[in-house]
């Protein structure tokens, strides 16, 4: 609650939170079917119409309503982003935590594996995974989840190493706290601040990667409305109907912007170093 209030006081936090809230509402309405039109229905007489009172953002080549399709597209992008970041954050944090806790050889092995994953550009690693599993929503989730796992491992490991050497952890060990208790209460709890920031920023990155994958035709498959696919389809009709490109493009940009702004605000609020600087 205190955090929420701090975010709302932060200028970019406020804008970011507002954008994300708006998109979440649109996605939820889309998910329960509250769209202005059926997103899959083809209004054949109204093909490639510009924005109007009936079709707010116009219609596409098959006469489908762009606004309704965008609502569903946002929902799908968010679902993939949230699920993949959940995977990356859980796996990465555990890896980083155990690497720091066990130390020595385990630390070396686990973190070198993370280095191996980091040596591939995100989209390329995702492409490889798509090639193995075949495109689809589940594949996008796994692929993007794996791609961002090493970042969480690094974010968790460094502070966990520092905490492990602190007196209170030493003390907890001497009076016989179990390993599990120390790991969850003393280490994990103290990692919440850096993890919150990284999770928010990772949501922005995974939206970027997801839309990139579907732009290449390797994300979710038509006829399901997907922001990347809508953009890719718009390319050939660009001069005749620029809005087909403009609206999905702006939608993706705004969604990413929302998470970036919120992530920046959270970093300002939660990072002790920036607090010192301001004080």
């Amino acid at each position, binding site marked *: 609650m205190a955090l929420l209030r701090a975010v709302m006081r932060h200028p970019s936090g406020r804008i970011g939170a507002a954008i994300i809230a708006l998109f979440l509402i649109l996605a939820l309405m889309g998910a329960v079917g509250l769209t202005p039109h059926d997103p899959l229905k083809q209004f054949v007489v109204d093909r490639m119409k510009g924005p109007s009172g009936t079709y707010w953002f116009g219609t596409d080549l098959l006469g489908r309503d762009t606004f309704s399709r965008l609502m569903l597209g946002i929902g799908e992008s968010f679902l993939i982003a949230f699920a993949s970041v959940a995977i990356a954050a859980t796996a990465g944090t555990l890896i980083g935590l155990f690497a720091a806790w066990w130390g020595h050889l385990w630390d070396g092995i686990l973190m070198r594996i993370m280095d191996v994953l980091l040596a591939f550009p995100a989209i390329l690693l995702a492409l490889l995974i798509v090639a193995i599993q075949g495109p689809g929503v589940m594949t996008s989730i796994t692929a993007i989840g794996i791609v961002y796992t090493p970042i969480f491992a690094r974010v968790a490991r460094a502070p966990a190493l520092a905490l492990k050497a602190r007196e209170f952890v030493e003390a907890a060990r001497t009076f016989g706290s179990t390993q599990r208790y120390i790991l969850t209460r003393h280490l994990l709890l103290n990692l919440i601040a850096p993890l919150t920031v990284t999770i928010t920023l990772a949501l922005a990155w995974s939206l970027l990667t997801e839309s990139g994958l579907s732009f290449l035709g390797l994300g979710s498959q038509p006829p399901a409305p997907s922001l990347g696919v809508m953009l890719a389809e718009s390319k050939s009709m660009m001069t005749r109907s620029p809005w087909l*490109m403009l609206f999905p493009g702006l939608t993706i940009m705004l969604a990413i912007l929302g998470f970036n702004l919120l992530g920046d605000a959270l970093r300002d609020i939660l990072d002790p170093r920036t607090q010192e600087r301001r004080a």
Partner: protein
Amino acid sequence: MNYITQRLLTFPLVLLGVSLLVFFAIRLVPGDAIIAMLGTEAGLLTDAQRESLAAYFGLDQPIIVQYGRWLAGLFEGNLGISVIYGKPVLEVILMRFPLTLELALLSMLIALVVGIPAGVFAATRADRPSDLAVRVFAMLGQSTPSFVVGLLLIYFLSVVFRALPAMGSFTPLFVDPIGNLSQMILPAITLGLSFAAAVTRISRSAMLDVLSDDYVRTARSKGASQRDVVWRHALPNALIPVVTLSGVEFGYLLGGAVIVEQIFALPGLGRLTLDAISQRDYPLVQGAVLFIAFNFLVVNLIVDLAYAALDPRIRLGGK
């Protein structure tokens, strides 16, 4: 063990890990390599022909042997034969690499030329409207996917100037510099924009940090001009994080820009890899992905060493 030796020692280990991952990941792709190669005509093969083909590509050996052979070949610069092109993999990759390298260099040039001055400008005017404007632009630049930027650029070019960027065949730099640059400028701007935004943000925050350091205050109190303080005293130190960021970004760009190459129909490393994946050209995918990861690791190693050279605290391994 100091930082530099540690970095040099783990480098081959990570590279070995990359080769293992690439090799076995490719083997997980469903589908028979021979069918992928010949398409429907694979059905016409007799068993004997199929076996001899498998033997030719070494596919009849146990997987560990295949990996060992491939790894041994790597040391001789032999990455195998591409199925699509029928040429050595390394030759195919090196044909595409100049374009990718040029694109990465141009994007970095744009990013640094725009980003560093913008970041310094914003830092020296912290919290004033001009700083805010720079920050808003940087934020927008970082939040816009490259394909949105690319499509918008093509749109404005075709509507405002009624011209279309040259696409299709690629003009090498040394054959026709003007033709080459007119072809590369839009993709370079597309990639350079988000890169510039990142450079702006990091140079601004690094500059702000440095400007509040004691030594800068000392320089000021000695009567150094604002210009001297900013550009001569503060900037060199503020550039250290910029070097790191640019190095990492450049390393990724050397891996080819799949999406931007796709939009502008450029035959770079990214599209080569994408095509190789979709056509199941195992040797080519392996070679290209390994090449990309290798470049990235080398660039990162150089960046780390440069970073250590710039900052004695790291070089000496102390903290």
